[in-house]
């Protein structure tokens, strides 16, 4: 019975982590889909969201709701700012330049945070405490449930946005064929900015959810989380929104299974091994589209 409950608990953990990975992976996929950039700085936006929440609650003693809004808003604005300052000047530049710049931005954010906030962890007061749910004799963490629910709702809203709204159509058009979209009168710049904004907002939500599970902020927290979410995006097919969701949950569950098997020190290794296997077997991921070079 205890094995069963351990596994179940791990699955719940996996879903919780997975939904956060999914939210973050969405940001990676959307940005890649629209400007073919692997935004290495994406993970670090989460880190800054956490610090914003911390400042808000620990330094200014605001209520949690305000802190959440501030964090999400802060992430959104930061994402937009980075796009305008660092990526827009490089539109049309070779991919290597963009990639290196993204790495530079990531580095910059981490080190700036370290300089301003110090390297040691800052404890974030909890946003909300929800009593665990009982399923028969098993307790499921309330936080986990909320996390999964909020993630699911966010993803449903995103799907609605992308499929049914005018801006969503514009996003899809620019992803498909930038030049044609421009010729159709779509404003490329604002579409790209909007994509970054949405992706960063989702990261902000992810940040809040992450902090509800691990209530501390360190300068490098975004790095590994971002990398793993990135693997999730690649697994699902980078550029694909449903793919990011599937990938996120897959990675979360994979980690949970590894932990359940007692091998949690190998968690990171397993995630990267998944990455490598995906890239070797089907680089475009589960739902991605293959690209052909014209000879």
């Amino acid at each position: 019975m205890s094995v069963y409950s351990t596994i179940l608990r791990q699955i719940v953990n996996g879903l919780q982590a997975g939904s956060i990975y999914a939210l973050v992976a969405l940001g990676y996929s959307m940005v890649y889909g629209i400007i073919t950039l692997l935004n290495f700085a994406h993970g670090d936006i989460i880190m800054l969201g956490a610090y914003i929440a911390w400042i808000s609650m620990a330094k200014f003693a605001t209520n949690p709701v305000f802190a959440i809004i501030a964090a999400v808003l802060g992430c959104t604005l930061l994402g937009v700012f980075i796009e305008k300052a660092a990526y827009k000047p490089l539109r049309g530049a070779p991919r290597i330049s963009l990639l290196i710049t993204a790495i530079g931005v990531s580095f910059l954010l981490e080190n700036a945070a370290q300089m301003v906030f110090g390297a040691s962890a800052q404890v974030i007061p909890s946003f909300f405490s929800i009593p665990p749910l009982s399923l028969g004799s098993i307790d499921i963490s309330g936080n986990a449930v909320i996390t999964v629910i909020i993630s699911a709702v966010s993803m449903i809203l995103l799907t609605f946005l992308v499929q049914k709204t005018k801006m969503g159509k514009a996003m899809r058009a620019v992803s498909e064929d930038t030049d044609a979209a421009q010729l159709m009168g779509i404003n490329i710049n604002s579409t790209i900015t909007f994509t970054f904004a949405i992706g960063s907002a989702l990261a902000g939500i992810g940040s809040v959810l992450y902090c509800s599970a691990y209530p501390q902020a360190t300068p490098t927290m975004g790095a590994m989380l971002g990398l793993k979410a990135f693997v999730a995006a690649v697994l699902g097919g980078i550029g694909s929104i449903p793919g990011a969701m599937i990938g996120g949950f897959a990675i979360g569950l994979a980690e949970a299974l590894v932990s359940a098997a007692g091998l949690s020190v190998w968690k990171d290794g397993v995630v990267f091994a998944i990455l490598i296997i995906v890239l070797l077997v089907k680089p475009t991921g589960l739902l991605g589209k293959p690209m052909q070079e014209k000879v």
Partner: protein
Amino acid sequence: MNQQYKKIPMPLRYLINTLLFAAFLFGGTALIKGGAVSNYYTKVLMLLGINIILTVSLNISTGYLGQLPLGHAGFMAVGAYASAIFMTHVGMDASAAFPIGLLIGGVVAGLFGILIGIPALRLKGDYLAIITLGFGEIIRVVLLNIDSVLGFKLTYGAASLKSIPKTTTFFNTFLCVGIVCFLIHTMMKSRHGRAILSLRENEIAADACGINVTYYKVLGFAASAFFAGVAGSLYAGYLGILNPSSFGFMKSIEILVMVVLGGMGSMVGSVLAATVLTAVPEMLRAFSEYRMIVYSLLLIIVMIFKPSGLMGMYDFSLSHILEKIINWKPGRKKSAGKAGEENG
């Protein structure tokens, strides 16, 4: 070609460079032995030598082969640990064993380069970057945890591999720098080097010219890994202690910054950038917390304003400068692209 352009003949070029290098090597060693250079600066110089080798080795994969591997620190780690494990277990005198240790570090890293390169180099651009990042991280995780799988202590993981003989000196570091740069130079200025460059320029055309694309991609990548392994071995002998956390993604990025800043495709640029980015932060120890911020800002700014780096793809030599001086006349038109010339 301009008939009146006086060129310094081949053997003389080699001689000039060898003499200058020997002067630096032996002169520097003498100064250190004589106490003219402090212990602190000697250490900085050794670190500089190691960084130079790291940078010129990564430059092979990025600048010459045209890829963007993000796991270079992994090869350094493999070399460092291979060499350190050898040095801590071998019975013979440490200074005598060290050259073997260096070679072991290089060869093991080179083998990893082949193993990783064969699957990874089937991918391109962003995907190659990601997969090498993945491999680099896996190497780090394995080094951290392998002891529990093996059942005996090999790498000591997070507890650190200690008591590695500190056999690295100014002399052998820069001797390695000289040899590595020489070998990279001779490789690149040959038909094999041209083959590698052709892959950077236009892989499909290179294929059509009869170049075995897979062979040369793996060769370039393995060479890059080999030299990184040598640098890792020197690093192990410099620090005396190894921990997997020193070889993560951050380290790969630090090396990448040096290559990018120096100009991808320019060995001279790599050397210069490594020098600047090693020496300057050390001198500015007091401002070390700003160092990383300056690093990152520098990277972004260079990418936006001068993506070709300090030296671009331009590789020059001392003999070349001397030739220019000998032949200087006002109004003379330069011929561009010295890739075809034999530089001494």
